[in-house]
């Protein structure tokens, strides 16, 4: 399960549009993997590392 899928599983109300606007997932191609670069959702809290583990 990739990062977007983990977040969607945590917050099923999220849409693909949210990943185009208020949420930015990022991978810097440095071997460190995907991470949340920006979380500006108006009502949902940014997931913790534990929730995404």
């Amino acid at each position, binding site marked *: 399960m990739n990062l*977007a*899928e983990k977040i969607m599983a945590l917050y099923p109300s999220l849409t693909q549009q949210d990943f185009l606007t208020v949420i*930015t997932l990022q991978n810097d191609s440095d071997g460190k993997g995907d991470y949340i670069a920006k979380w500006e959702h108006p009502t949902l809290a940014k997931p913790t590392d534990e929730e995404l583990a």
Partner: protein
Amino acid sequence: MSSIVISGDTSGTLTLAAPAVSGTNTATLPAATGTVMVSGNMPAFSAYVNSAVSITNSVYTKITFQAEEFDTASAYDNVTNYRFQPLVAGYYQINSSIYWGNGSSLTSVRSTIYKNGSIYKIGAVTPNSTIMDITTLVNCVVYLNGSTDYVEIYGFQNSGGTLTTQGTTSAYSWFNGSMVRSA
């Protein structure tokens, strides 16, 4: 204005050379203050993807343009950070294309210019199900301070799975730029 003053503040020489042809030519300097730019201090580069890049669904992923066509000032890092970081301050025209191939599974694809690690400009396409040949383009003029500022390219797609860039020659996915005026 009745004179031209040439002043030096260190060792070395400045040579103004006439063209090796007969005749009279006039070079008029503008009535403005600034640094005269010549080819030797106007960085330009061009690089392309020669090994497909995997991009996970809904994740902005840095595109690793590993092959260089030219890099006049060694300002593009094609080994580690895949970024253009010129050491001459000024305004730069930046261009990039990502070739995705078949777009039938995509709802959104993007080429994105990042400046200093953050989204700066986005070029987006929303393919429809019949499009089989998708390229996203992004262009801008950006100020770079000649020391710490840099630009990179990130790709984005939301097909629902992982995609790889298509094409591994200079014609497909590329990143280039050039100074257009000094600071």
